[in-house]
């Protein structure tokens, strides 16, 4: 049971990451390979505020997500001038830069030593130290994020985003300054990812830079593409598959000697099959 609760928490965190990345990639058509860096900024921000400055989790989360948003704003000013392949490359570079900061800014982030001893959230004397309580908290956060981005994508603002995805030049002709729309959704997406990062740091209790590499960004892209682009349900289903499938494979009775390798192999083959049969992902409404 504890194991299931643990997986549910991990699933919720990845579902948040999926939803926030999907508004950028699925709805707006901006192939961003930098989501893990904002995930990391949220995690590091919260961890440092809680461990070094002894802040409470909730204000730490808010400040971390604001910092994530501000960094996204600064970078987004440049990044939003790009489109298509150049956007992907630019964002990839961004992820590498931010990872290097985590790794080398040792006076602040303690570099590769990581930050241990991050505590669980508390409100007054009530501590979310039980995993089931923490799960309830993460699920609330997931529901709030889902609702928020549901409204964002259904609003007229969301319509413009989809128009940018379909034909950026055309929507510019109608007088929309697409640059600002791309910037706004980039910042919102980054803030969402930072919130997921805050929960991740508090739950795992130890973070190091290697959790926020380009690989993680690619993993998140795979998650939403398989779950389904431009669909919030898709992001959540993607998280469900990517968190549960490798864990479920632990229970397939492969022989002990090469069980670990077999799991990776089967996992890979299953993902290929999924892409073959559902190129739009499970609940996707759009393909590149």
């Amino acid at each position, binding site marked *: 049971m504890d194991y299931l609760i643990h*997986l549910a928490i991990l699933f919720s965190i990845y579902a948040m990451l999926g939803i926030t990345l999907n508004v950028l990639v699925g709805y707006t058509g901006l192939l961003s390979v930098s989501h893990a860096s904002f995930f990391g900024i949220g995690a590091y921000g919260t961890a440092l505020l809680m461990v070094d400055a002894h802040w409470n989790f909730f204000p730490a989360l808010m400040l971390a997500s604001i910092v994530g948003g501000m960094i996204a704003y600064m970078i987004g000013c440049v990044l939003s001038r790009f489109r298509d392949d150049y956007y992907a490359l630019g964002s990839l570079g961004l992820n590498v830069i931010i990872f290097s900061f985590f*790794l080398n800014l040792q006076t602040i982030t303690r570099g590769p*030593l990581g930050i241990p001893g991050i505590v669980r959230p508390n409100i007054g004397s009530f501590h979310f130290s039980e995993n089931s309580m923490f799960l309830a908290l993460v699920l609330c956060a997931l529901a709030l994020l889902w609702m928020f981005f549901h409204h964002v994508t259904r609003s007229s603002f969301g319509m413009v985003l989809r128009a940018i995805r379909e034909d950026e030049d055309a929507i510019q002709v109608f007088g929309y300054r697409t640059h600002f729309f791309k910037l706004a959704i980039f910042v919102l997406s980054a803030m969402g990812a930072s919130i997921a990062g805050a929960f991740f740091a508090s739950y*795992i209790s130890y973070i*190091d830079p*290697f959790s926020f590499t380009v690989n993680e960004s690619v993993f998140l892209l795979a998650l939403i593409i398989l779950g389904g682009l431009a669909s919030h349900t898709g992001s959540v289903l993607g998280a469900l598959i990517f968190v549960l499938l490798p*864990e479920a494979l632990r229970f*397939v*009775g492969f022989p002990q000697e090469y069980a670990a390798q077999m799991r990776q192999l*089967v996992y890979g083959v299953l993902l290929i099959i999924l892409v073959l049969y559902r190129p739009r992902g499970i609940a996707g409404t759009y393909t590149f």
Partner: protein
Amino acid sequence: MDRSKKIWLIVVAVALFGTGYYMGKNSSLQKEDTRQKTSEQALKIGFMGPLTGDAASYGESIKKGIELAKKESNIKNLEIIYEDTKCEGKDAVNAVNKLISVDKVIAIIGDVCSGATLAAAPVAQEKKVVLVSAASTSPKITDAGDYVFRVVPSDALQGDFGAQLVYNKGYKKLAILYSNEEYGVGFQEVLKKSFEKLGGKVVKQEAFNRNVTDVRTQLVKIRGQKPAALFIISNSPASSVAALKQIKAFGMKIALFGSEGLKSSDILSGAKDAADGLILTSVSSGTTEFTEKHKKEYNADPGPFSAQGYDAFMVLAKAFEKEAKTSDDIKEALKGTDLAGASGKIIFDSNGDVTGNYDVYIVKNGSFELSK
């Protein structure tokens, strides 16, 4: 992709799954048979470590040590459940949760990388399950909790040992070249502190990222400070070979020291005569007796931390002999451990650490010679 290709892929997937399932079923059937013969209740311990990914060789070599120890210990109704963590924090937390709440293990050997151990330790601590690491050397693990033990000494001790070694050889100006990760950073901090306490001076510390093969920039900076000795801290053979070759190419006249990560046959074959005279500190790779046993069983020399894996299992086996049935019993039993293990004497201090069992090696004529 046309239809026939899709069908083929599915056939392959089904076949993979089928064989896996069939073989798994067979092996579990066998397990059940033996279990019925011996006793109804099986002792379960878990192993977590990298069995895939770039650190997999460490995981596999520790696993060999554990299996060897299991064979020798003659505890009949014992089952070891192996879980892969790829040396990543998130996967380590997955594995430790699975082992504790699904398999209900009473003790866990793992993880290998310090980062993964630090991520898993709070879970083990909260659920009160003993965690014994065979290879995590980060000084931070000392404070990870009273259920967390390790049979490999902390880097803090190797840093001390290394500093003393360099100082006693008569070098007073030292430069450090280290790999920019948990292991390298922790190690070099201690090395610098200890060396300066002894009265020496660390004139330059330069970092390189794991697996890079060009450290010329760092070497130029180091050369500028004219140190008498250089300490290389690395656990990436590719980077170590590159560093040694580039030092030779620069014609730097400098005494070379290295951490245990450089004690690998890849270094000898890669760097050739550039490695001559290199002096290494290394955690013990096992007594001669252990090396013989390992050779007999697997027809190969023990890999890195294989002896520590053997010892990790043995300290647990000793606890089982003392009728330790619950995790708390094991914790108490471990505190009284006094074992002449494969990697040296194992006595846990109050933090669950062991004191260092280090060897000094020197590279001569293309091989590592143990120096006394």
